[in-house]
């Protein structure tokens, strides 16, 4: 079975983003970029499926600028077999990304597509579900466990009240949650080996997908700042403040 994994190049999760002074967008100049953490979990899950003999080939796809090759190389170093970059400097909205991925799915015919549940930049949490709709595949979102069984996959999902398990006919789409696995680090020899793995580049035009704007970004502002608080010296003072100043207990 072939597994398709998607990875997104985003701001490193340790970096606190700043808003540009003209309020037009966030400032990503000279900011450290990395693979979206949920995509790391997706890559790890695919590699484990291959190690378990369930997956035979892992194809990793990214969409974005040329620099997104770095994130594909990282995935290749972690164990993916080959990469595809759909290169575009345009602002790719989730629906466009899903349409482009649907073209790749039609070409590659994977048994399973594993994606991150959300990217930590736009925080949209929607591309996986959209790709599932466009390809008419079932979706196991927010997965904390994935078990492939013949032509079906059982996915345990993190939901608001606890955990839910669904069974999906393959081909299917899985989006990862935090507890699915703990991603490994790439070893130096594997990083070297990854440089020789195949990486194809395509464009949205080649795939026949029009980049259409569905939204217009009017402005970006920093969130309302909180007033600086105080340190209390004792539990007694804390109780007093909560009762008599904040009046919340």
């Amino acid at each position, binding site marked *: 079975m072939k597994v398709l994994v998607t990875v997104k190049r985003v701001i490193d*999760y340790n970096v606190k*983003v700043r808003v540009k002074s003209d309020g037009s967008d*966030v400032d990503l100049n000279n900011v450290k970029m990395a693979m979206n953490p*949920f995509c790391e979990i997706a890559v790890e899950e695919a590699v484990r499926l291959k190690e378990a003999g369930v997956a035979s080939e892992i194809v990793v796809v990214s969409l974005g600028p040329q620099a997104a090759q770095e994130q594909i190389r990282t995935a290749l170093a972690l164990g993916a077999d080959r990469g595809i970059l759909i290169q575009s400097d345009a602002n790719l909205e*989730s*629906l466009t990304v899903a349409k482009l991925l649907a073209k790749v799915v039609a070409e590659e015919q994977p048994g399973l597509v594993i994606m991150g549940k959300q990217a*930590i930049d*736009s*925080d949209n*949490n*929607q591309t*996986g*579900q*959209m790709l*599932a*709709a466009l390809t*008419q*595949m*079932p*979706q196991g*979102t*927010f997965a904390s466990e994935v078990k492939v069984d013949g032509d079906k996959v059982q996915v345990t*999902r993190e*939901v*608001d*009240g*606890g*955990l*839910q*398990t*669904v*069974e999906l006919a393959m081909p*299917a789409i899985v989006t990862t*949650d*935090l*507890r699915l696995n703990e991603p490994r680090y790439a070893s130096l020899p594997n990083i070297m080996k990854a440089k020789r793995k195949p990486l194809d580049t395509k464009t949205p035009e080649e795939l026949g997908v029009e980049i259409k*704007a*569905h*939204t*217009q*970004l*009017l402005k*970006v*502002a*920093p*969130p309302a700042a*909180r007033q*600086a*608080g*105080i*340190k*209390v010296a004792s*539990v*007694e003072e*804390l*109780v007093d403040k*909560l009762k008599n100043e*904040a009046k*919340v*207990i």
Partner: protein
Amino acid sequence: MAILIIAEHDNQSLKGATLNAVTAATQLSGDIHLLVAGGDCQAAADQAAAVAGVTKVLLADNAAYEHQLAENVSLLVAELGADYSHIIAPSTTGGKNLMPRVAALLDVVQLSDVMAIESDDTFARPIYAGNAIATVKSLDAIKVITIRTTGFDAAVSEGGSATIETVAAVHDAGISSFIGETMAKSDRPELTAAKVIVSGGRGMGNGENFALLESLADKLGAAVGASRAAVDAGFVPNDMQVGQTGKIVAPDLYIAVGISGAIQHLAGMKDSKVIVAINKDEEAPIFSVADYGLVADLFDAVPELDAKL
């Protein structure tokens, strides 16, 4: 044109988050219709009809919708939704699972986690873990939206008298099935609806020590939450995680115990009215958002606080 809200329910009763979605819809122009899609869900539809501000309830009662599998319900919502200007759901795990699928079927994008409505087509939503707020204008004919429940008060759940209309359409994609679920049981209030929350982090050390927080929570009528580190370590279940990728909360009082205050955690709680932090490290970033910070060992401070309440 009217606004369609996808009700969150468990077939018997309407979930509170639906009421926040109704309030969001009242800020748009158009009648408000609530879709209750489920199996044996008449009771939930009756409750939906009583919500103030709702003019019509659409009841789609069929075994195919019993567990609200996105593969089936999205087909129904896309069919019904084509006649609406806005389709709204709360941004719970249910709404997040369903709505992007609906949006793609309608060839529109989804506006995720909307926290404020400026006009019928312009919305504010958090990006980058809430470190920036984007104001976005939708260019699509149908706006598919999930709303952040903390941004909108709950609508009144009684007094309305909407008509209930039965929807005959049955969509069963036949590609997914429900196997089972393990749901947390608790007598405490739900995290996203609680007025007071006591949350524990890695500093709690283990799951047993959460009893200290539970005792405190019971005195305060509070819900108990956690950081990702506490969930990952297996101290407590996943449904307790507060943060960018967990639950977003904004209670009157949030007490963070043994939590450092990573941006991903702050993203989920920094809109709380009053924040208390108890941490033994005076440099912990949680103190930068806390109204009242107590630098102390939690194993001394929490029992003492409990005793003084």
